[in-house]
């Protein structure tokens, strides 16, 4: 299905701003305003077509409502979670010089303190029949309270996060 889609360049390194029209009107446009073409390095960069490391989760009712994100766990310095009613919508991963997000990360929701990655795990749970994610502080786990479901520890591999409005599914895949 990916062959029906293409990546279209809208900006190079001289980008100053983006603009877009009303997405619900015909002829939706999105583009970029450059500073100046003389600032452009004219350095051609080849885009990488988005690919998915895991298939669409089986619970997905409609494919068009599912969203995909991923982030490596190597060289991770700290993480912050975006929380909603005790469930984790997504996380912001800090690598020192740059950051990435997986899942849904919204500034209007509760943003957690910074955690060191080896102090935190992700727990796939079900709430009202829907798969969601809980954050597990590893220090708080005693042998007696170890959850039945496996905790995803953020140590190695690539964190893959599928989500829609009210469901999330995470997995860790090895680096290929």
């Amino acid at each position, binding site marked *: 299905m990916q062959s029906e889609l293409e990546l279209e360049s*809208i900006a190079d390194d001289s980008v100053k701003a983006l603009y877009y029209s009303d997405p*619900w009107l015909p002829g939706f446009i999105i583009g970029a*305003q450059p500073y100046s073409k003389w600032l452009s390095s004219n350095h051609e960069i080849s885009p990488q077509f*988005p690919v998915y490391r895991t298939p669409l989760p089986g619970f997905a009712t409609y494919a068009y*409502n*599912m969203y995909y994100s991923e982030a490596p766990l190597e060289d991770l310095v700290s993480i912050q979670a975006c929380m909603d009613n005790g469930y984790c919508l997504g996380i912001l991963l800090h690598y020192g010089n740059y950051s990435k997000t997986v899942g849904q990360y919204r*500034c209007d929701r509760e943003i957690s303190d910074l955690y060191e990655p080896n102090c935190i795990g992700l727990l796939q749970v079900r709430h009202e029949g829907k798969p969601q994610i809980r954050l597990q502080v590893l220090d708080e786990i005693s042998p007696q309270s170890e959850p039945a479901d496996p905790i995803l520890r953020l140590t190695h591999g690539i964190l893959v996060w599928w989500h829609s409005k009210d469901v999330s599914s995470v997995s860790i895949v090895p680096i290929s």
Partner: protein
Amino acid sequence: MLLPQHGQKDIPFTAPRKDLLLHYVPLQHASAISLAFTSGRITAVTSHQQGNPQRCFYDEADSDTICMYCPLSMNERIEAIWVLRHKNKNINLGIRSLVVSQTLLYMKVVGLPK
């Protein structure tokens, strides 16, 4: 539609095409870009500045909207931006994704391609 020409100084952004409202998203000093998706298509874009999380962006989101956040490295310039769209421009499936490249960061934000 006319945009400020290359080399011109800051000119207030205008959209001369009749009845066309354009949303303007400055990227100067932006610490992140947020995208709102509905049914797999981008419906709104905003930029965040350090210390200004732009919470009003979420006020306009309806209950079905998914918001995704793309942090930018403040120490590096954006190298390139692409949009992911249907090859056939006559098929109005909207923009499925925005891809932003910086030297250290390659950010893909994806509504599932169909």
